[in-house]
């Protein structure tokens, strides 16, 4: 039984790591990341940049905390959750403004 347990642990570890690596490799090879920081009109979007930075930093912080102590799932500070929520609101507000705001209406009238 001990051999089966060890084999299962290593097999799942290898499979999941391989899935992660191959998925990231294919994503970097095929997908375009330009839209992450640019609006539809091609200009740099501050709302997207702050959301991207907050997302990457939050994910890294959580991953490092779990790697340091994998005995339990860590909880996130409520400030970070509030910051992510506020950041999302800012991003969605900017997106709605760009989609339905006066700039778009003016361009449609022209």
């Amino acid at each position, binding site marked *: *039984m001990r051999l*089966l*347990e060890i*084999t*299962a*642990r290593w*097999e*799942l*570890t290898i*499979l*999941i790591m*391989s*899935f*992660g690596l*191959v*998925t990231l*490799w*294919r*994503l970097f090879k*095929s*997908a*375009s*990341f*330009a*839209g*992450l920081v*640019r609006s*539809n009109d091609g200009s740099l979007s501050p709302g*997207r940049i702050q*959301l*991207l930075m907050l*997302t*990457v930093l*939050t*994910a890294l912080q*959580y*991953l490092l905390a*779990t*790697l340091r102590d*994998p*005995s*339990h*799932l*860590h*909880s*996130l*500070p*409520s400030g970070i*959750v509030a910051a*992510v*929520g506020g950041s*999302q609101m800012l*991003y*969605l507000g900017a*997106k*709605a403004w760009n*989609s*339905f705001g006066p700039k*778009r209406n003016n361009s*449609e009238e022209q």
Partner: protein
Amino acid sequence: MKPETKYILMGALVLVILGFILAYLPGDKASTEIALNKLKIATGFTLLALVFLFGFAVLVYIANGSIDLSDLLSETGDSKGASMSRFQLLIFTLVIALSLFLVVVSKMQFPDSIPPEILTLLGISASTYAVSKGIQMSATQTTTTTAVVPPPPLPAEVQVTTTTQPGSGAAGG
């Protein structure tokens, strides 16, 4: 030979080898407990082999491009490139799933509780994706309905009839 046939043959070969190994494992054949234990081990190894082969086949399909992952990040429609909300949902899901896997591997048991902050974070991310999709769809519909469509030109017979009507009207009146 098709790739699927190759994988099925490979899986069958591995299972046959495993079956032989497990059938000739040393043990007292008279003891029911040992026989049941061998059966448990054989079932476990068979399931492990199946999971590994299935995962390996999916990995090969992803690596050679048969399973296309380019749409995982990019939106359809007029927006080009990757979508921020899709990227965020993907990153958070991957990180939390990897953390859960690490915890389960280190303790060999499922964690007692999942912190509510994690669920809130995933909920915020998924809601943002849904709202973003709604904004995008509404904007597309608004553009489609406000576009001015020119009327189609009249057929030639109708135009002739229209031009001859005043004359015929005058003759009749």
